[in-house]
């Protein structure tokens, strides 16, 4: 019996290949979006993990020198002998063949078991690592090292890009830092007895694992955007799959009745249909993963560039197929298909064997379902409101996103129906009246596809608002931070005093830029010294500041900090910040800082020079009305290479190009999401075409041409898409607000002001309409070219 039933079920696909194609393609596209995003995320995360593991940052507590950048090796031995399980790390930069390479020296005998050091060591042995002084590096570094270093080189993927791992003794020798170590990793498990840290090493500070230097944590913000996008594409995908499966089931309703009338038990039928679905979903899932791989492979170079540009964290620009996203892709296809099929199967199981009349429209929700949906929408939107007011943390942010989007999707059909009813009331001519009524009648069938369009459009509006707001803020920030016309590299000229004199004589103002790395409020930070002048007074915009902020800075009586430091150390205007031994100053202002992960403190030039007499300016900002002239004069007077003089425009352009790359990925995913929504519309229209013939045939018979009818079909689809797109706008803005005001604060540590971009929204809306138009064209073309007998049959045979 099973064979006969399976054959009957499968023969449907043989005779309806287009439908099979749409089902498989719909599932595959949804899976592709999902797994593409997952692939990018997984790949980048793996790179960070390697980076973090090489640094041993993030996962372990560490002991750092309270001052300076190193400590004597004897402290390591003293701590071990006092019962502390710590492992030494020495690190520094070495120029190898013109490239700055990050050297990390570890002691393999005491390194934590799960660190990159021990991962890499699993592939070598102590003799090679210690005695032969082997360097371990990722594949992209290996060639460089082999060409320039006498040491043997071992290639290992576990080592972060740009880093080289070696024994601590080897690295101390290469860096010329014998007997010094940079920091100590504290192993997670410590013995029962140990002496207090303060007794043995009072000059070390314990930095907890969740320190702000954790590169993985920083870059998580970017992944958060991608993950949010992944969920959105998943949602859009589920709508398509739901539609495709609902259609496949609905079209076979008659066959299923016949099978049951012929004595096939319901249970067997349901099991076989689930089996069929599993096979199809697995196939489509595999196809989708392959597609996702393609998407990821195309986008990954951008992602790698983005992350490197934004955070300086290296992502290897190659894609590896990871089991995790294969599995998640297949699981998504299967889970999505079964989830989408659940209601269809449920309806099937409850369907009486003998039907009253022919099939109802497959998605034609009963009044009760519609009421339930509307109620769910109200509840979800209310929950979103509550979360927005009371929620805190990333989880709440995501829950808010989910409630908002799902609630809005469910609210769409009632809203559309209400709007169409309004239109119907306005209509005077018979044809117009029919048009509105018929459009409304089509709603249940197109509902899911329109929900997909709503979500896709809202995602686009939300993400582009976020990106554009970011961009605007960022450009303002660049204007503020790069306000001088020229920047001269201080190292370019041997006689620094002469250079200063020359600049003082020729420029409107000279702004020496001095900075030193420091630990402020226990966090890694930089202290900047600035020469207060009109440049700062006019260009800087503070998030919060006392009125005479620059006077206080100039007099060395106060400090300005960036938003990152303010948020992380809970420091606000009026609080006191310790800049070093015996130097504490009140915070006079907090300034937005969007290009830099760590904290900054800004003090006046005089105070800086007095506190850090050894630090010379690294660059000079130069204000001038004639940048080209001054540039030439500088080159002639000091023989400064042109590359050592940077003009503001170039820096800005570079910074912006880095930033633009960041979101090129998001842009590409935007287009894909919209394409998927268009596909959903196309499929729904194809499905509805056959069912709608009985409604069209009388209108045709009463004297309307097929061309006109087809035109109305297109108009109808575009109208529905347009209303949906308009409704998507507020939803998208709400989405943007959640991303900027909640998710971004949690991830980046700063809140972005939200700007509106009407032109961008119009562009997106036209995009969505174009998508709907494209989707409507083919079904309409089919209608206009249909043989009259097709319509006549409606009258001859009432199904």
């Amino acid at each position, binding site marked *: *019996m099973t*064979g*006969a*039933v399976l*054959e*009957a079920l499968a*023969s*449907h696909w*043989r*005779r*309806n290949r287009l439908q099979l194609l749409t089902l498989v393609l719909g599932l595959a596209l949804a899976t592709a979006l999902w797994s593409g995003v997952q692939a990018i995320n997984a790949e980048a995360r793996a790179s960070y993990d390697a980076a973090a593991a090489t640094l041993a940052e993030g996962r372990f507590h560490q002991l750092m020198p309270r001052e300076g950048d190193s400590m004597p090796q004897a402290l390591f031995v003293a701590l071990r002998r006092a019962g502390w399980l710590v492992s030494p790390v020495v690190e520094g930069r070495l120029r190898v063949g013109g490239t700055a390479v990050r050297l990390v020296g570890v002691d393999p005998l005491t390194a934590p078991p799960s660190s990159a050091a021990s991962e890499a060591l699993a592939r070598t042995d102590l003799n090679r690592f210690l005695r032969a002084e082997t360097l371990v590096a990722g594949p992209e570094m290996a060639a460089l090292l082999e060409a320039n270093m006498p040491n043997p080189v071992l290639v290992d993927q576990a080592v972060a890009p740009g880093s080289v791992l070696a024994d601590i003794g080897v690295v101390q020798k290469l860096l010329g830092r014998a007997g010094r170590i940079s920091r100590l990793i504290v192993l997670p498990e410590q013995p029962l007895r140990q002496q207090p840290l303060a007794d043995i090493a009072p000059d070390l500070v314990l930095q907890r694992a969740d320190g702000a230097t954790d590169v993985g944590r920083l870059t998580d913000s970017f992944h958060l955007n991608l993950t949010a996008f992944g969920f959105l594409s998943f949602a859009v995908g589920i709508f398509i799959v739901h539609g495709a499966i609902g259609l496949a089931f609905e079209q076979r309703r*008659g*066959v299923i*009745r*016949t*099978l*049951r*009338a*012929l*004595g*096939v*038990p*319901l*249970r067997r039928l349901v099991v076989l249909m689930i089996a069929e679905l599993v096979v199809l979903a697995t196939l489509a899932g595999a196809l989708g993963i392959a597609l996702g791989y393609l998407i990821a492979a195309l986008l990954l170079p951008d992602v790698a560039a983005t992350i490197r540009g934004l955070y300086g964290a290296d992502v290897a620009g190659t894609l590896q197929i990871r089991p995790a996203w294969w599995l998640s892709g297949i699981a998504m296809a299967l889970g999505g298909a079964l989830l989408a099929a659940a209601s269809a199967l449920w309806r099937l199981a409850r369907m*009486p*064997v*003998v039907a009253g009349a022919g099939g109802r429209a497959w998605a034609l929700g009963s009044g009760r379902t519609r009421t339930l949906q509307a109620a769910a929408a109200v509840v979800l939107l209310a929950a979103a409101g509550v979360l927005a007011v009371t929620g805190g943390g990333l989880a709440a942010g995501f829950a808010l996103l989910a409630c908002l989007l799902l609630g809005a999707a469910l609210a769409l059909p009632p809203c559309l129906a209400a709007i169409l009813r309004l239109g119907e009331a306005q209509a005077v001519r018979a044809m117009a009246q029919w048009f509105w009524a018929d459009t409304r009648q089509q709603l249940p069938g197109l509902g899911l596809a329109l929900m997909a369009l709503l979500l896709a459009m809202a995602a686009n509006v939300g993400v582009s608002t976020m990106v554009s707001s970011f961009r605007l803020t960022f450009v303002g920030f660049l204007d503020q931070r790069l306000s001088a016309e020229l920047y001269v590299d201080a190292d370019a000229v041997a006689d620094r005093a002469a250079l200063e004199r020359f600049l003082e004589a020729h420029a409107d103002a000279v702004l020496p830029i001095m900075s030193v790395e420091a630990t402020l409020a226990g966090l890694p930070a930089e202290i900047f010294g600035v020469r207060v002048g009109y440049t700062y007074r006019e260009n800087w915009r503070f998030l919060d500041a006392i009125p005479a902020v620059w006077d206080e800075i100039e007099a060395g009586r106060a400090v300005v900090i960036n938003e990152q430091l303010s948020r992380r150390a809970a420091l606000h205007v009026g609080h006191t910040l310790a800049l070093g031994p015996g130097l504490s100053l009140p915070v006079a202002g907090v300034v937005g800082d969007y290009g830099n992960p760590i904290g900054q403190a800004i003090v006046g030039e005089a105070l800086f020079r007095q506190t850090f007499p050894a630090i010379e300016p690294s660059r000079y900002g130069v204000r001038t009305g004639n940048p080209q002239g001054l540039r030439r004069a500088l080159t002639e007077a000091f023989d400064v290479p042109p590359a050592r003089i940077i003009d503001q425009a170039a820096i800005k352009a570079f910074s912006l190009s880095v930033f633009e790359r960041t979101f090129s990925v998001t842009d590409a995913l935007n287009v894909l999401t919209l394409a998927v929504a268009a596909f959903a519309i196309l499929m729904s229209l194809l499905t509805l075409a056959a069912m709608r013939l009985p409604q069209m045939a009388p209108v045709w018979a009463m004297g309307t041409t097929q061309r006109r009818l087809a035109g109305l079909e297109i108009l109808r689809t575009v109208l529905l898409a347009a209303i949906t797109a308009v409704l998507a706008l507020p939803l998208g803005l709400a989405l943007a607000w959640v991303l900027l005001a909640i998710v971004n604060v949690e991830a980046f540590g700063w809140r972005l002001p939200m700007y509106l971009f009407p032109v961008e929204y119009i562009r997106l809306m036209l995009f969505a309409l174009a998508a709907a138009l494209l989707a409507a064209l083919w079904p309409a073309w089919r209608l206009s070219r249909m043989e009259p007998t097709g319509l006549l049959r409606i009258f001859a045979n009432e199904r």
Partner: protein
Amino acid sequence: MLLSIEDLLKSYPGPEGPVPVLRGVTLSLDAGETLALTGESGSGKSTLLHLVAGLDAADGGRVGLDGQEVTALDDSGRARLRRSTVGIIFQQFNLIPSLDVAANIAFQARLIGTPEPQELSRLAHALGLEPQLRKYPEQLSGGQQQRVAIARALAARPKLILADEPTGNLDEATADGVMEQFLALVAETGAALLMVTHSPRLAARLGRRAHLSQGRLA
């Protein structure tokens, strides 16, 4: 006795409460017997047929078929009964549109085992379907489609054939031709036949007649 129906009750929900369709029908049929069930539209003919086939559940009374209590069977029991004991021929033919004629004819027989190829070709020959075997239902005329449905029902060798207006969708000439072949084949197989029809002319060709009016046998 092959089929015994006692005091069968059935009503359907309506806007103003349940609408009774069968109000106590009692009827019996012996093996090999043929019975025509006539009556006006809405008299409950099709409902009676559905209850006998176990396609729907009765509200009261009992249906005994081939020693089994149809009204006491659960869903899977009724499905088994339909596969093995009953052959149903619908007014709308109810063929499987994605299978060709040969596969449709063999279908019900395959549900209960392996059909004999000679039997299938004998039926196809007797019903004049041989040129159509590789065609799909949508390529056939109504008369041809109903012949396929008849062949499908007979190929499974049921003890009881239930036919619901089998020629209701056909013109008179075609209907006569189909009915001729149908009755001849039923007689050949020795199956009992319960046929719903509104045509007195057709009813006259069967062994017994019963008339249903307002849910009761006249």
